[in-house]
């Protein structure tokens, strides 16, 4: 059975210190496209759904604000974990979310964010937002 390209992306985030779980989510539909490092105490469907909801709400806010740019990162700090969410678009009409859950006792947040942003410049590039285009629609 061939390896999924999403597994190849996730293999790179596994190297981040404190890594516990990672997944790639389609931001439009909330579908989990790939995951790594399953943990019994972390429900992947709930994590993915919550991440997609969060990104959706921020997208609605950005649209109403006409903020001249979309979501790049979200950092959620829980008492035991960091949840890092990175949005990327391998193609202009695709919006993926990369969620990485880290153990706070082992992770360095600044380094983790730096590593997350550099996962793969070819596959991970921000999607340009179309600001103000609806005028005249």
């Amino acid at each position, binding site marked *: *059975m061939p390896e999924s*390209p999403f*597994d190849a*992306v996730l293999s790179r985030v596994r190297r981040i210190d404190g890594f516990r779980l990672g997944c790639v989510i*389609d931001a*439009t539909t*909330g579908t989990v496209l790939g995951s790594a490092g399953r943990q019994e105490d972390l429900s992947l469907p*709930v994590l993915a759904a919550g991440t997609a909801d969060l990104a959706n709400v921020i997208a609605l806010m950005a649209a109403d604000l006409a903020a001249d740019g979309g979501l790049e990162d979200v950092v959620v700090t829980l008492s035991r974990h960091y949840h890092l969410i990175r949005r990327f678009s391998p193609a202009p009409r695709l919006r993926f979310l990369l969620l990485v859950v880290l153990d706070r006792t082992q992770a360095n947040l600044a380094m983790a964010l730096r590593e997350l942003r550099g996962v793969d410049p070819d*596959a991970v*590039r921000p999607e340009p937002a179309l600001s103000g285009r609806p005028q005249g629609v």
Partner: protein
Amino acid sequence: MYFQREPLVVRLRRLAEAGRTGVLRVSGDDGGAIHLSEGAIVYAESRRTPGPGTLFARLAGPGPEPGDADTAPGTGGTGSARDLAWAYTVREATFDAALELLSGRPRYGLQQRFRDSEPPTAHGLPGLSLAELLAEVERRRNLVRQMAESPVPLTADTPLVRVPDLAAPRMQVSALQWALLIRIGGTATPRTLAWEIGHSVFATTLEVFRLVALGFLTVARPAAEPAPRPDAAAARSDAVPGDGRPMVSFLRAVGR
């Protein structure tokens, strides 16, 4: 018996548990096919949903030829942008078709035929377990239900109209939303838009629902109802009746 009429999900479960390889074809206008490899679901197609080829071509250029599995993007698992786009389009087309085939009207009457001799189309990608497929179909059904029961009831086949004037002077949309907005007109529905842009019906319906929440679109009214008032504030209020925006919750769709 060559043809069978048992529920599709029952037949599929038996084939998956037996680790079968082949193609389960469902006849009729609502029909399609589910491709299995050693019990894993590798691909699904429906006559009511677009396949992966059109979307991939729009995203990343021409796709691989049929039967060209060795050179298909994604085969090497390198995680390049092209590989990711290909894996996404195949996976999304599979879920979209499975939702159509396994949902909606009772599937007792559909004729099914499984052929071991027909090689499944895997598109060079790993398959899904039946449990994973059914969990995703159930999640999507819950989201479809949320949209259908919202203050602006929306299904894949609801006619759409553009809100004539926007209350906000400036707003921001994604590339996909823009592609949808410029195609609204006449008898557009999420399903017709999906076929036009090659995206999945489910993803298009969700994105249309977000455009309704933003006040860009609303559902077409039956001819007997009065036309929307012309001023901008009223138009926005008509687009989203009641208090607040129509929203879907992915979290609510997965339950506990």
